[in-house]
């Protein structure tokens, strides 16, 4: 589903002494089936932005159009339930979306709420739990008596069980161990590729944003300052750093190597394999001994 953001402004606690402009005239379109990452410094408006995509927040000005559903400032939104059925959202802190007494009830809640029969919901809960790498014995546990990473996985399972058309992820890998992080990112990449799920991921990992996204949106103080392919975004090293961001680790390494050798090694490289290629070419250039 396409997501259109039109002149979106969001002000928290308007007309009070605490009034805060969190989004300032943000305007872009995410094409249906795209994988888009949003990066930006702490407090730049990322979570505020994406909470408009399933109607959790309403625009102060402007509008958000998800598929054929419009959420506009000042208008009554009767389609919210339909919207939330199609747009699954994993919150920044999983504690904010877990509330049932068992993991099974928690994962089943969404599907049941949208009319999926109990038996089918339970099947989905089992499938989802497996997808996030937790054993079925977790079904009967309380979601609050889990470790941080386990809670995160249950929250993700709850969204997967919805079978949404759009998946919104707010720092989905924070707190996950390296294997879970890799597995779950691969899972989202696969769902995106095979099922054409439109995916929006807020992340502080430049590496994940670089490797997974068709496009990256860069936020700064409530404004969108860039929207481009990763290869283009991550050549703007100085700009990114001035925004509290950075380039992916492979590029940081190459930059160091470049600084040491006086050569400029600034081409985009997002994986360790690409980096190894570039380093090999670097070693083979003029004069040096030759390694295959």
């Amino acid at each position, binding site marked *: 589903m396409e997501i259109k953001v039109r002149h979106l402004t969001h002000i*928290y*606690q308007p007309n009070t002494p*605490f009034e805060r402009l969190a989004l300032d005239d943000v305007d872009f379109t995410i094409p249906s089936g795209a994988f888009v990452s949003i990066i*930006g*410094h*702490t*407090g730049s408006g990322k*979570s505020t932005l994406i909470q408009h995509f399933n109607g959790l927040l309403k625009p102060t000005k402007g509008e958000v159009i998800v598929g054929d559903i419009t959420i506009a400032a000042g208008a009554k939104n009767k389609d919210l339930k339909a919207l939330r059925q199609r747009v699954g959202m994993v919150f*920044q*802190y999983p*504690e904010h979306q877990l509330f049932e007494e068992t993991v099974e009830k928690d994962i089943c809640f969404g599907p049941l709420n949208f009319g999926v029969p109990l038996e089918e919901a339970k099947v989905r809960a089992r499938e989802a739990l497996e997808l996030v790498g937790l054993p079925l014995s977790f079904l009967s546990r309380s979601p609050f*008596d*889990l*470790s*941080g*990473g*386990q809670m*995160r*996985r249950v929250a993700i399972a709850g969204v997967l069980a919805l079978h949404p058309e759009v998946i919104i992820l*707010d*720092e989905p890998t*924070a*707190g*996950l*161990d*390296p*294997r*879970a*992080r890799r597995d779950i990112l691969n899972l989202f990449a696969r769902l995106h590729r095979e099922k054409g799920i439109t995916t929006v991921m807020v992340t*502080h990992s*430049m590496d994940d944003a670089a490797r997974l996204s068709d496009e990256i949106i860069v936020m700064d103080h409530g404004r969108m300052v860039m929207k481009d392919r990763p290869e283009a975004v991550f050549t703007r090293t100085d700009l990114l*750093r001035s925004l*509290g*961001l*950075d380039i992916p*680790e*492979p590029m*940081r*390494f190459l930059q*160091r*190597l470049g600084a*040491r*050798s006086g050569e400029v090694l600034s081409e985009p490289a997002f994986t*360790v*394999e690409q*980096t*190894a290629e570039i*380093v*090999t070419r*670097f*070693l083979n250039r003029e*004069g*040096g*001994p030759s*390694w*295959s």
Partner: protein
Amino acid sequence: MRKEKIIEVRGLSFRYADDSDWALENVNMDVYAGEWLAIIGHNGSGKSTLAKCLNGLYIPQEGSVKVAGRDTSDGEALWEIRRLVGMVFQNPDNQFVGTTVRDDVAFGMENHGIPRDEMIVRMEEALALVGMSDSADREPHRLSGGQKQRVAIAGIIALQPAIIVLDEATSMLDPKGRSDVLAVMRRLKQEKDITVISITHDLEEVAGADRVIVMERGSVVQAGAPREIFKHPKVLLDLGLDLPFAVNLREHLVQKGIPLPGDVFLQEELVEELWKLKSVT
């Protein structure tokens, strides 16, 4: 730089209920005064549970935890232990007590009996260090995810306990925020000889620690300098953990036939080795 042991954990076992599995099983470990100790391990391996045993929030069913010689099972010593061990929790929401950022940072200091003038100085310093000075009057629960983490960290910086436990305290910070906070912590460690225990999945941070403890299913399975731990990549990969970028890249380059020494482990070391190779003509 082996100094005195400031925390001694002996035969520690802990479970959340009589009929549940052990979350920690026969854990033995020491923490040395003034060191930076990183704790890594898969989700559910017991890191946060261990952290909460170190400041006496949980009392082990078996074994003992001693902080500066005081046993956490000794009720009389608990107050002093909590004064010595300050903690930033995995989820900052679990930590906030004040209705404003200012009250929240002040709360811990009040509890520690820090004089008012001193409190004000430390408050301003701490909020400035995490870049939250202009949010002092805001409500903690209305902050962004990363701003909450910054305030929680400011609270601990203001307190300056002898031992700081960070439970994934920078997981929601932007790249600059994260490196700023780590730099502040390193400076506190240098200047005030504070001991830092940091639970993290961030391998760059681990690479910079003095020592690392690796946990698996409630047990400590490895302990040592990062350089030693990362000499055995396979062990870590089998535990579901990852390698620092330089170690990973070195492995790939060695496979391409590039001769690199096996102990290269920091990025700057790999850069030097590659530069040496390049310079050989």
